[in-house]
């Protein structure tokens, strides 16, 4: 349950009171453990535990002194002066002895940010450990005063395998999550507030903090760029909508058809459709993109373009015409995605109680009414959250776009900064960060905006979805 602000501050106040009051009231051992972690533990018979706390404190100080401190200093120096991240540039000099130009390495802005973030996180962790050690020390004082014997180290260890097993279990995954997700994520977010791109490439150059300038550019400050952003965003949303719902309803209709009593060899049909899943998606996409190639003569075109030309006498200008490319991409995506949603829908359809259908038939409902009043609401209820994840997944559906059209066709009059007319935000981001400009700063801004858009939409739609609203009614 979310805490309201008032009670949060009340709790904070109480904690502060405990912390400082504990110091004032505590005896020498407790007071000492405010300065030397584990002091109280060692004095009161928890030597092993106390030593571990002491070790943590020593390790932390050593880390700051030997490694983290310098990065932290450089990180904040630039941050508060609005200057470059790090101050020493890399130089070349001629070494007569070796006959080559050598490099004198300077500061690496990226590493400063990365290790700065890491150090800040470690400080936060340390603070948590410190506070808990101090709290334990105060509790220990009370325990001893009450004449009880403090818990021994063996018992502590036993607890880790028993009462506190969740801590043991989660320690490693949490460490992994922290190192491989949280720290890189925070670093990447910070890049959005710098001018990191090809011209400030590390480690040769330093980049600097620019505040919200990049956000300003993309949200209106730079008319061409923000126009491009809005166009790409528009197509991303249109694409996500169609990709999600064509697949969803396509799969549902297919599942319903196969579920019909008159259909024989149901398993065979399902297997045939599901077999397409066995082919890796990127293989089928690349083949599709070959088959859709539009060339100047039929012989140079892909098989689908040839067939369309022979049968309908029309040119399928895939990768040249904007609308035709967009429609083709959505259709190909259906071909790839419908079997998945058919699989999911089949399972759910079989779970709809048959009595519902029977009673509706008795009441004289036709197949259409049955679909709209029983099947669809039931499906939406069960698959609402799935639809949301699909929609978000499609906003970030890199594979389909990148492998099918690569964003083509370009359109000089509407798009700038390397974006093309079928680019999604995510493929644009990819081109920005790995393209000519290596525009990491802009890529990071777009990444953040995509997250904000996805998060807002998910929350809004999820709270409005029947799965949440009618949680109790529908069973």
């Amino acid at each position: 349950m979310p805490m309201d602000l008032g009670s949060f501050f009340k709790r904070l106040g109480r904690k502060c009171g405990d912390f400082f009051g504990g110091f004032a009231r505590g005896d020498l051992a407790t007071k000492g453990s405010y300065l030397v972690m584990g002091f109280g533990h060692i004095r009161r018979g928890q030597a092993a535990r106390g030593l571990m706390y002491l070790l943590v404190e020593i390790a932390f100080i050593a880390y700051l002194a030997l490694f983290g401190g310098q990065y932290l200093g450089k990180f904040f120096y630039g941050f508060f002066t609005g200057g470059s991240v790090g101050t020493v540039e890399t130089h070349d000099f001629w070494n007569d002895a070796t006959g080559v130009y050598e490099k004198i390495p300077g500061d690496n802005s990226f590493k400063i940010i990365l290790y700065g973030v890491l150090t800040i996180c470690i400080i936060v962790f340390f603070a948590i450990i410190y506070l808990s050690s101090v709290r334990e020390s105060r509790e220990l004082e009370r325990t001893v005063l009450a004449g009880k014997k403090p818990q021994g180290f063996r018992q502590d260890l036993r607890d880790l395998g028993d009462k506190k097993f969740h801590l043991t279990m989660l320690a490693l995954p949490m460490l992994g999550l922290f190192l491989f997700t949280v720290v890189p994520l925070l670093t990447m977010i910070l890049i959005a507030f710098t001018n990191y791109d090809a011209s400030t490439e590390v480690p040769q150059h330093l980049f600097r903090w620019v505040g919200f300038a990049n956000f300003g550019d993309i949200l209106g400050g730079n008319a061409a760029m923000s126009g491009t952003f809005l166009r790409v965003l528009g197509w991303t949303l249109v694409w996500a909508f169609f990709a999600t719902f064509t697949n969803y309803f396509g799969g549902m209709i297919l599942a319903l058809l196969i579920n019909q009593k008159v259909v024989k060899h149901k398993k065979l049909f399902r297997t045939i459709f599901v077999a397409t899943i066995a082919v890796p998606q990127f293989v089928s996409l690349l083949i599709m993109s070959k088959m859709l190639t539009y060339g100047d003569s039929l012989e140079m075109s892909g098989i689908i373009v040839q067939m369309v030309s022979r049968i309908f006498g029309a040119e399928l200008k895939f990768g040249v015409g904007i609308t035709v490319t967009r429609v083709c991409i959505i259709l190909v995506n259906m071909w790839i995605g419908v079997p998945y949603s058919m699989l999911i829908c089949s399972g759910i359809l079989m779970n709809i109680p048959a009595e519902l259908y029977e009673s509706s038939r008795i009441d004289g409902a036709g197949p259409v009414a049955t679909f709209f009043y029983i099947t669809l609401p039931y499906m939406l209820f069960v698959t609402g959250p799935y639809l949301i994840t699909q929609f978000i997944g499609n906003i970030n559906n890199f594979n389909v776009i990148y492998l099918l059209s690569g964003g083509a066709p370009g359109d000089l009059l509407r798009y700038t900064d390397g974006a093309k007319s079928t680019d999604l935000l995510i493929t644009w981001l990819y081109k920005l960060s790995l393209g000519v400009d290596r525009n990491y700063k802009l890529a990071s801004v777009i990444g953040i905006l995509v997250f904000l858009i996805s998060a807002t939409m998910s929350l809004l739609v999820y709270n409005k979805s029947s799965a949440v609203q009618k949680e109790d009614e529908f069973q």
Partner: protein
Amino acid sequence: MRKRIALALSVLMLAALLAACGGKSGTQSDSSQTAQTSGGQSYTLTVWCSEEDQAMTKEMCNAYAAAHPENTYKFLYGVQGENDAADKVLNDPESGPDVFAFASDQINKLIQAGALARVGGEILTDLQNVNSEGSVDACTVTIDGENRVYAYPCTGDNTYFLYYDSTKLSADDVKSLDKMLESAKKQDKLVAFRLYDDGWYLSSFFFADPELKYSVTYSDDLTEKSVEINYDNAKGLEVMKALRGYFASGALSANVDDSKVIAGVQNGSIIAAVTGTWMRSSIQNVWGSNMAVAVLPTATIGGKQVQLNGYFGYKLLGVNGYSQNKGEAHKLAQWLTNEANQTKRFETRGLGPTNKAVMASDAVKNDAVISVVLQQAEYFRTQKGVPGSYWTPMASLTKQFVESEDPATVSDATLQELLDALCKQIRK
């Protein structure tokens, strides 16, 4: 028991995460010298070059090791095409290769990122003496008002010219694009010239008019300070009008890439193609002795016949600025681009040399393709100092021609609008 399993699983998960981070792939080791000679040094050098160059490069490196018996060398090879070598190196220059091949137009961004070691001393003097002026120029940049050399010229043939089937087109036909298209049209065939989706080829039309140009002012660290381009003037419009006419001719195949050109040559729908040396063997396989080559044709722009004029680029070898063995890496790069190895490169793969002695040899002069390339090198523009923002907008400049049913219907106003948008995106 269950707890143990859970614990084991969580450890496994972390191990998997860690394993995913480690491991370096893509390079194969090939230890050439095993006998350790006393007193010598031991070096490990990583060399990146294209798939096609691998075998040849291995031979050259082994020969280098054999020529320096006092040291022990271990060479690691990575497969990396020159066209996007810079991007791959820039992903992490500090752990990149010691010596790598790249296309000359990438030199600026490599220098900017500190990924190229500057050449100096005797090696530099030698480099400047033996190589052609244009190729040395491609390795040279001006920083702080001083000309500095950052790479070794390797091959000089990164350009495009005309291949044609001499049974379908005469040597006279291919002198002018108008005639060539007319003749192809009569035969219901196509001339492939990638004027859509690729600014590299398209530039040849703008370069035909020496007054149409761009210029970049660089700051001392090679950042583009300002970019000026004048394609949006009246002369640029003439070029667009000429292009419109050629697109409408019905015999120009502009929406092609290498694979489409090969497909078209194989099934006979293409009888002439503007492309580069890398397509030589594929085309020769089909046309055989009927394959002929020629310099780019003339085209009618603004009512006058003008010579099309394209980009001339070089393949360079660079020493990584972060290499641990810079001294040896420089020597190896010099070795790989010396006279003997440029001759070898020409003989094995038909690649154009930059070494003046090799260029002057009879074998090179008598080679139909390379002689056309070198002939064009006289007047083509060296691919250097191109604005970074140039390629993407140029690639879609002719989209309207390909998209519309009849390119002739694209209005002059639209052409001007396209040129304006182009220049606006390139200018800085």
